């Protein structure tokens, strides 16, 4: 058995647990994978959130990736961070930076086991704000300035790769270098509001190849399990080269629903809820959905492709939300096998993301009046 085989069979607890604390967000990014905007009245209470932390401490989940929505909007956010760290669960949280002022930055600089990830999706305001909304670039940079002034140390700058920002890779690296930050690049998935904008914003084939070679030259740039579908271009990129959904990865959403990964907020990939009897542990260890994902997967339509061992058929979420069968090729398959299927599915009804918490857009508002 290889390490990859061990991971495919599932672990006793996730390695990478993402926990979205709230659907509330002050931004309306066009690619938001959780379609966030408005708070959900059923969101976990402080006591329920503490119980989740107690439980994942017992399961020895060593750290949690907190996101949203904009997690810092929750009034108990700072309390939950402290509670988590006090219970041996380290925290990395993603933020748009709007709440990171000078005082907060100083407090964060004094905290142990807290890691911060600031999201930008362009190396300049025009490119970033096109995706994340007007003023969001300036906000993110102000937060970075505060962290640098407070001597926080190495934070992370997180970028979703789009057609408009792949050309700015070197600028992102320079920006990270300037702040003494670590650059993290992730893949644009057609999830949440991203389903509607993916066709316009996902990188072209040529851009994917450029990104692959750029990453090969920079093993210090973090990518998680984002780009394993690019391994079919040659040697594997550093990081986890398999779909970790339900095996080493999962997502807990703000109302406590447990999904196989952060990119599949859809009933088909919902394994249970932390409020159910047996809690998160039972969902992780005994849910039918996760047991199925830990079974050997069929290579399906990709069985005859020589690259299957390298790319593993690509990303489950990317296939699902572009209407490709789960045992089919990735929509961004580097050999182009996904293209026809994406085109064929374009006219057919595609699965829609689960709960949509987007704020009503001004256009819709006018329409209803």
């Amino acid at each position, binding site marked *: 058995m290889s390490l990859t085989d061990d991971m495919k*069979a599932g672990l006793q607890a996730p390695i990478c647990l993402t926990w979205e604390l709230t659907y509330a967000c002050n931004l309306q990014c066009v690619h938001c994978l959780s379609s966030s905007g408005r708070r959900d009245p059923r969101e976990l209470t402080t006591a329920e959130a503490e119980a989740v932390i107690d439980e994942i401490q017992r399961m020895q989940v060593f750290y949690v990736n907190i996101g949203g929505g904009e997690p810092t909007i929750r009034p108990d956010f700072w309390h939950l961070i402290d509670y988590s760290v006090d219970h041996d669960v380290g925290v990395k949280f993603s933020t748009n930076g709007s709440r990171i002022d000078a005082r907060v930055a100083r407090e964060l600089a004094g905290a142990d086991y807290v890691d911060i990830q600031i999201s930008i999706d362009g190396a300049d305001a025009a490119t970033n704000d096109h995706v994340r909304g007007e003023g969001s670039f300036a906000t993110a940079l102000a937060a970075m300035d505060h962290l640098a002034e407070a001597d926080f140390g190495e934070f992370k700058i997180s970028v979703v790769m789009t057609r408009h920002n792949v050309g700015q890779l070197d600028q992102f690296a320079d920006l990270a270098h300037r702040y003494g930050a670590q650059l993290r690049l992730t893949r644009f998935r057609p999830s949440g509001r991203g389903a509607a904008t993916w066709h316009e914003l996902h990188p072209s084939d040529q851009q994917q190849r450029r990104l692959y070679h750029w990453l090969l030259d920079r093993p210090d740039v973090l990518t998680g399990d984002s780009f394993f579908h690019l391994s079919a271009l040659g040697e594997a990129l550093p990081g986890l080269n398999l779909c970790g959904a339900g095996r080493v990865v999962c997502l807990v959403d703000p109302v406590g629903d447990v999904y196989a990964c952060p990119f599949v907020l859809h009933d088909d990939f919902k394994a249970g809820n932390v409020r159910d009897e047996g809690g998160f542990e039972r969902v992780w260890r005994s849910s039918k959905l996760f047991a199925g994902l830990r079974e050997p997967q069929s290579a399906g339509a990709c069985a005859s492709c020589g690259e299957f061992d390298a790319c593993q058929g690509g990303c489950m979420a990317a296939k699902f939300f572009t209407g490709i069968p789960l045992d089919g090729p990735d929509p961004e398959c580097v050999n182009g096998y996904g293209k026809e299927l994406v085109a064929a599915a374009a006219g057919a009804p595609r699965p829609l993301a689960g709960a949509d918490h987007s704020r009503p857009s001004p256009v819709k508002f006018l329409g209803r009046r």
Partner: protein
Amino acid sequence: MTFDIDRAYRLNDRVALRPEPFGALAYHYGNRRLNFLRAHDLVAVIESLAEHDTVRSAFDAAGIAGSRRATFEKALASLAASDFLVAT
């Protein structure tokens, strides 16, 4: 510092071991690194290190066959290099 099988080592206090079907996951709260320990007897040796004056004696007590000791030594040396094990 090179790893020395005739010295005493122990697991760093900031490292937690999580049992897994293949052995254990080791997590270092200080440097936030994760290590996969992919043999149950390797985990047993690591857990017993503190009780022994030398790594060799921990190998003997756990009945680690001579043919596997080179592999184990390499794994322990790598753990010591990343601060998961500390010399005592």
